[in-house]
């Protein structure tokens, strides 16, 4: 996925000399190919993300197509106000890349983990939010981002969880991609790294459709409505807070078009407590495959038994 990202960046810059890559002194090794192929289109803005976004706005006004790269904890979260005021308010065509989203930087602690970026970005008027799951979605999402004439946030999470698609995919803004069929009982809708988890759970025997959500904002209400007419329940999985992320987005939309029970599986209202690997942190947050299976089982028994929901304390 990271090679696909590097390839897509280089291709975009070679195709359009107005494409500029701005980084806040991040991207060690990742940008080697870019710097070699397009050295004049690479701008290291230093460790100064707020200024970087304002500069990107000025460059966009001057006819350039800035791609602003940072860790998701900084772009978009640290610079949210600059994105709002300098870029979104004028609908400038700037692409923001938030890398390392979720628990990628597990061992570095909460400052570098990013589980609130989707919630922040979604609320900014006119900002499209993309979240690819594998290299095929990444390539298509990056192309889609570059085609927009308005601002885009592209979220990059854990990148080495393997392909979820057999080959290249086509993306349009809002689309949900069906990856597995089911008998119509329920559906898992996941984004980014958690699409792999959804597939693993279905492959282990759960009867459910699996959908990937590479675009989180906007989301196609028509496709979602069709899914809801077919199934009795939805489970949404994401490596992001359950507040304001994909789960919230799906729940908000479903409530309006055809309510079905929606279980939001993500990060609850807490920071990581301990240092640890990516896999360790997924376990700490009950987002590893085994924990997710148990959470889904609990949800389904509540739905099937028509019991009163036992809401998790933190949600």
């Amino acid at each position, binding site marked *: 996925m990271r090679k696909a990202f590097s390839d897509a960046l280089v291709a975009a810059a070679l195709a359009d000399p107005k494409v500029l890559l701005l980084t806040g002194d991040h991207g060690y090794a990742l940008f080697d190919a870019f710097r070699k192929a397009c050295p004049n289109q690479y701008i290291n803005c230093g460790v100064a993300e707020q200024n970087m976004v304002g500069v990107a*706005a000025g460059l966009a006004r001057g006819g350039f197509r800035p791609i602003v790269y940072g860790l998701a904890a900084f772009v978009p979260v640290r610079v949210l106000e600059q994105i709002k005021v300098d870029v979104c308010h*004028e609908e400038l065509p700037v692409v923001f890349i938030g890398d390392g989203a979720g628990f990628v930087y597990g061992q570095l602690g909460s400052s570098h983990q990013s589980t609130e970026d989707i919630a922040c970005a979604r609320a900014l008027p006119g900002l499209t939010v993309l979240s690819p799951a594998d290299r095929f979605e990444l390539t298509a999402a990056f192309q889609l981002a570059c085609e927009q004439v308005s601002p885009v946030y592209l979220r990059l999470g854990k990148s080495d969880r393997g392909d979820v698609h057999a080959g290249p995919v086509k993306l349009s803004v809002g689309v949900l991609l069906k990856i597995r069929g089911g008998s119509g009982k329920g559906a898992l809708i996941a984004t980014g790294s958690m699409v792999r988890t959804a597939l693993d759970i279905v492959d282990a025997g759960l009867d459910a459709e699996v959908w990937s959500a590479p675009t989180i904002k906007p989301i196609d209400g028509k496709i979602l409505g069709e899914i809801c007419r077919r199934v009795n329940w939805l489970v949404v999985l994401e490596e992001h807070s359950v507040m304001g992320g994909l789960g919230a987005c799906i729940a908000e939309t479903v409530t309006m078009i055809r309510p079905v029970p929606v279980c939001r599986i993500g990060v609850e209202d807490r920071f990581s407590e301990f240092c640890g690997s990516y896999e360790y942190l997924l376990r700490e947050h009950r987002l590893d495959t085994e924990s997710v299976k148990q959470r889904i089982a609990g949800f389904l028994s509540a739905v099937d038994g028509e019991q009163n929901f036992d809401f998790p304390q933190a949600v």
Partner: protein
Amino acid sequence: MKKFDPNRIRRIILDMAYSGATVHIGCAFSIVEVLAVLYRDHLRLDVADPRSKGRDYMVLSKGHGIMAQYACLYELGWLSQADIGNYFKDGTRLKGLADVHVPGVEATAGSLGHGLSVAVGLALAAKLNKTDQACYVLIGDGELNEGPIWEGLLFAAQFKLDNLIVIVDKNDFQAMGSTEEVMGLGDVEAKFAAFGFDAITLDGHHEPALDAGLRALRAMRNGRPKAIVANTVKGKGVTFMEHNNAWHYTRLSPETYQAALAELEIRP
């Protein structure tokens, strides 16, 4: 009739502030001469098109002074009498801080510390596009409290933006008091020089001095960004407003409006 006459600009500001019952009069009055000189003799603009290609940029980063810029845009013909006369009425387009959707306003600003970075981006774009556009950006001294200002200054020097001219409206006040009381700035010119700028200090109400300073700095295409520390008076032009920070927040009454107008009208 003198174009961009400071006295007339102040009267327009006063009328806007009175009819709209608005605040931020003092911080508009302190930048009148700076804007008047820029619009009269320095900004290369196409009067027929506020967004003309190749224009010089005038970014008002201290968006609180926007009434002074509105007055200049009115003189340019980019704003109408209705715009000015209906200031702050429901459904009108002129807001209390700088908004990029207004013709002639180059950045949404007033949330402080934004306009400089956008100006730096515009100056860099001009460099990359190999044009001779200049980018002027007016920032407040209170605005120097904002961290992104210093990020932007470092960037401007690193990328050799000698087409960037930063003007500091040094009126020595910010919202809650004097800059010395709130967040002392020390020697502002020396700070800019230390950041790699060609920096000068001058009287920000003395039009010939402003004109000469701007002319000299623009001519110096030496790889160093430029700065003018403009010593100004908050509330300049109306004696009871001068150096009185209450006029950051105070609205005009019929009596204070008439008294201010009388002072402006006796001037040539």
